[in-house]
């Protein structure tokens, strides 16, 4: 039994147990989340994504340390980290290794690190990552760093969750055509070339700079996620459309030594201030919460449909499909409208 009061005052054991309940999808976890939701919306949620091996965990470790021990004139902030690693599609198991790189903040009561397995989700996060973030938010953590699964090109779920999205690149990861493809580079609020001490780093930086020059920040904002939900978005007012956009900066870091990290935190904070002062914060929040509801709605609709459909009809349709008597298109029609 988790008490909401314990979470709100930041009891670490209560938080940890609730996170497990939520990951496991228990009704206890869901009920507590319902009660916590009004207490959320205060934390700055920062997403860190990028290909495997670009140094996400090492950078998260440094970011957390910089937030705790600011090298510039900033107040120290409490930090929660949610680090997602992939689940094996075969065994359902996972090795979560992000903690290895997060040693500098060990023993600090202002930091809470939680690893999670993706459990079959494909967008770079787990289905329950948003729930975990809400718990940390309600518990009063001021910054929540969400590290995605090592992402390729299309794992862009993080933009729906984070206020500020960092995309990490490292030298030697493909030519300049990679930078004009759609997907992960587009979602960056801040681009980071990590491992800047490695050969080829300057080329990577140049490719990215060329790519960004071709972006219109205005357009980028309004069309941010493309059509990712079957349900319509809240309309954008004319005045919102005319607000100045954010020009994503490119920063360089060497996460192993900490070089560039202070500057990066500065920019992350700037982005937050930009969102707040331009009212984009509330716009983002609106969309974020809407997408969360949409995702849940789709999931629940599917379950509802499944529970109301006879499994014999499903099996019969599947058999016909496998024998190629009907097309997948027809099969879906049978399932939704009945076998006429």
């Amino acid at each position, binding site marked *: 039994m988790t008490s909401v009061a314990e979470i709100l005052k930041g009891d670490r054991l209560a938080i940890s147990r609730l996170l497990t309940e939520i*990951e496991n999808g228990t009704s206890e976890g869901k009920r507590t989340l319902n009660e916590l939701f009004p207490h959320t919306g205060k934390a700055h949620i920062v997403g860190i994504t990028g290909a495997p091996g670009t140094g996400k965990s090492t950078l998260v470790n440094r970011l957390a340390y910089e937030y705790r021990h600011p090298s510039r004139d900033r107040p120290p902030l409490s930090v929660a980290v949610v680090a997602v690693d992939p689940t094996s599609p075969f*065994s359902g198991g996972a*090795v*979560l290794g992000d903690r290895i790189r997060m040693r500098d903040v060990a023993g600090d009561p202002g930091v809470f690190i939680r690893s999670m397995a993706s459990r079959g989700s494909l967008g770079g996060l787990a289905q329950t990552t948003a729930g975990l973030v809400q718990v940390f938010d309600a518990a009063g953590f001021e910054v929540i760093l969400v590290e995605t699964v090592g992402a390729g090109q299309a794992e862009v779920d993080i933009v729906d969750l984070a206020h500020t999205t960092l995309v990490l690149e490292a030298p030697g990861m493909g030519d300049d055509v990679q930078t004009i493809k759609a997907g992960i580079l587009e979602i960056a609020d801040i681009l980071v070339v990590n491992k800047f001490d490695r050969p080829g780093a300057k080329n990577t930086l140049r490719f990215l700079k060329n790519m960004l020059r071709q972006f219109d920040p205005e357009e980028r904002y309004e069309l941010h996620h493309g059509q990712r939900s079957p349900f319509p978005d809240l309309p954008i007012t004319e005045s919102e459309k005319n607000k100045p956009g954010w020009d994503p900066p490119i920063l360089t870091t060497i996460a192993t030594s900490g070089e560039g990290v202070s500057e990066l935190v500065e920019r992350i904070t700037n982005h937050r201030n930009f969102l707040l002062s331009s009212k984009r914060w509330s716009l983002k929040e609106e969309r974020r919460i809407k997408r969360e509801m949409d995702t849940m709605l789709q999931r629940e609709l599917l379950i509802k449909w499944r529970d109301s459909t006879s499994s014999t009809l499903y099996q019969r349709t599947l058999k016909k499909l496998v024998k190629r008597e009907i097309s997948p298109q027809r099969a879906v029609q049978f399932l939704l409208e009945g076998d006429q």
Partner: protein
Amino acid sequence: MEKSQKKIKVLIAKPGLDGHNRGAKVVARALRDAGMEVIYTGLRQTPEMIAEAALQEDVDVIGLSILSGAHMALAPKILEEINNTGLEGVKIFLGGIIPEEDKPKLKELGVHGIYGPGTSTKTIASDIRKASS
């Protein structure tokens, strides 16, 4: 879909100063293949760090790999730190070079299982499953 998706969570840690982490990695991988979620924390963990990680990750099981001979010094300290976190029912397993005569003492302290070189990873996985059911 909506039924509880409980997974066994295991923390694999190497306390102390020896750098032989191959065994820990083999076990981590084997438990992954047995469908468990394994948090691998790497080398040179202090008892405090292990207890803190166990608390933050809410694990069911902690697997310790010790090949330095310091198990009689480290194990009691780790058990004490874990007790201090308030976590309940966490099972501790120990792997490495553990002399026969130390085993009863460690079991008495609360170590659930002890595995030496040559142990089948299947045995470890099935013992963990039994212990956390």
